[in-house]
């Protein structure tokens, strides 16, 4: 998706998207004594339907508040920057607080999980519902939704003051044994809390929909883990929570292993090749046939019960978890064991 250049966007604004004609961005900035110094003053939008036209220097007027757009949000995956033109990083002029505005973008696409493709949908309504359901719950990003002048469901999100959990774990500078003994018990305790949050959603008939390592943050102040981004959904009547449960297993694997260990990564060192010679096909992830789920073969000091939880996600398993609750029932005793050890 490519955004039109600024000049075209301004023209589009003049052509009909400006609804608050009495007020300009410059006037709004003066009125609220905003600290922002803009290189260019854009347009005031009340209708966000044409979100591609809304960019830096524009203001979105919504529910009596004004949000100065600073930039489009982007996801960085596999070293690539993927802009999300329907997600705007803003400053709320009234309060000076940073906000993220998620505009309506109904999208259908295939989520690739291993060799499988799962049809996925982006649903503003679902995200708005979960924001309502989890209001005040520190385990979830906070925000609210409002219709714009055209009835689009705009979600106004508070920026999570934290660091992506995977990056935080990556940054712990020690060997795995030290990490596992000194850091992992605390991380697991917080992760159990995050799993409880997902079990709560499931109990309400809701799904997170996009459980990935980069959608779980560690709050700078509280240290608690916070889930973000709830707008994905998919059709899954036979196993409604399967994709969520799979996501939780992936994160657990990362946390327990302080990274993902694959056949390829092991093959790079003599020690790794020796371990690899003992890894059987049953030890790999049922979805990603190169990821090693049986961490016992890499780190023999990981307690058996925790390894057995991970092996529910392995090719060798005959029984899979159907809900976050089932996972929790097996995972919670692992923490007791680690703390008791």
């Amino acid at each position: 998706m490519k955004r039109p250049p600024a000049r075209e966007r301004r023209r589009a604004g003049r052509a009909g998207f400006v609804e608050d004609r009495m007020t300009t961005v410059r006037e709004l900035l003066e009125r609220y004594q905003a600290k922002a110094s803009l290189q260019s003053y854009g347009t005031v939008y009340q209708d966000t339907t044409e979100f591609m036209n809304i960019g830096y220097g524009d203001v979105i007027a919504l529910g009596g508040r004004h949000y100065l757009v600073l930039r489009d949000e982007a996801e960085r995956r596999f070293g690539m920057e993927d802009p999300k033109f329907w997600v705007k990083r803003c400053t709320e002029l009234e309060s000076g607080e940073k906000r993220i505005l998620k505009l309506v973008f109904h999208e259908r696409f295939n989520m690739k999980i291993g060799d499988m493709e799962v049809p996925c949908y982006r649903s503003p309504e679902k995200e708005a519902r979960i924001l309502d359901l989890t209001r005040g719950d520190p385990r979830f990003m906070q925000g609210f939704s409002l219709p714009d002048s055209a009835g689009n469901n705009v979600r106004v999100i508070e920026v999570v003051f934290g660091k992506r959990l995977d990056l935080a774990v990556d940054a712990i500078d020690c060997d795995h044994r030290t990490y596992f003994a000194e850091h992992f018990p605390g991380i697991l305790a917080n992760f159990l809390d995050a799993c409880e949050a997902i079990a709560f959603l499931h109990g309400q008939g809701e799904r997170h929909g996009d459980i990935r390592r980069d959608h779980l943050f560690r709050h700078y102040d509280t240290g608690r883990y916070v889930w973000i981004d709830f707008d994905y959904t998919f059709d899954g009547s036979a196993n409604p929570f399967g994709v969520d449960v799979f996501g939780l297993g992936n994160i657990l694997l990362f946390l327990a292993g302080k990274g993902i260990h694959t056949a390829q990564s092991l093959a790079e060192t003599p020690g790794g090749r020796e371990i690899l010679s003992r890894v059987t096909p049953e030890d790999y992830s049922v979805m990603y046939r190169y990821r090693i789920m049986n961490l016992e073969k890499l780190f023999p000091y990981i307690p058996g019960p925790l390894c057995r939880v991970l092996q529910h996600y392995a090719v060798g398993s005959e029984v899979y978890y159907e809900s976050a609750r089932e996972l929790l029932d097996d995972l919670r005793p692992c923490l007791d064991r680690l703390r008791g050890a």
Partner: protein
Amino acid sequence: MNAKNILLAVDGSQNSLRAADYVGEVASGGPGFHIELVAVLVPPDRDIFPDPALFQAERDRRAHDAVQALDTAREALLGKGVEAGVMATRTMSCLDMDVAGTILVVREEVGCGTVAVGRRGLSKAEEFLLGSISSRVARHAKDFTVWVVG
């Protein structure tokens, strides 16, 4: 629990037709059978069909398919020589987003000692992610028999 009181779950697929054939073979062989034919109606997800008209159209299509699945299975049973009088059909709305759970609720209600389902033949990865209704029914079986027909 009466093992001759059979719940046959159908969805119109070839696998559920095979299950119907199998149940027909068994039930046509003697007296005392009752076959409860059940189609679970899974409503479309409103989040996936935000347009109310499309949502309703999909809902209608699924309801129609469920009735057709029951008719087809009933015909298969009649073809095997099962008497019409020993069969009952029902569509059941899916409870709590859980097809297998819904089948089990009906089984309990009707008091079936046997549940027959077709098996889709999913790969491990598909079963993990998409779920297998037959596996879930079998996993939760207690005090009744499950026939999984592949």
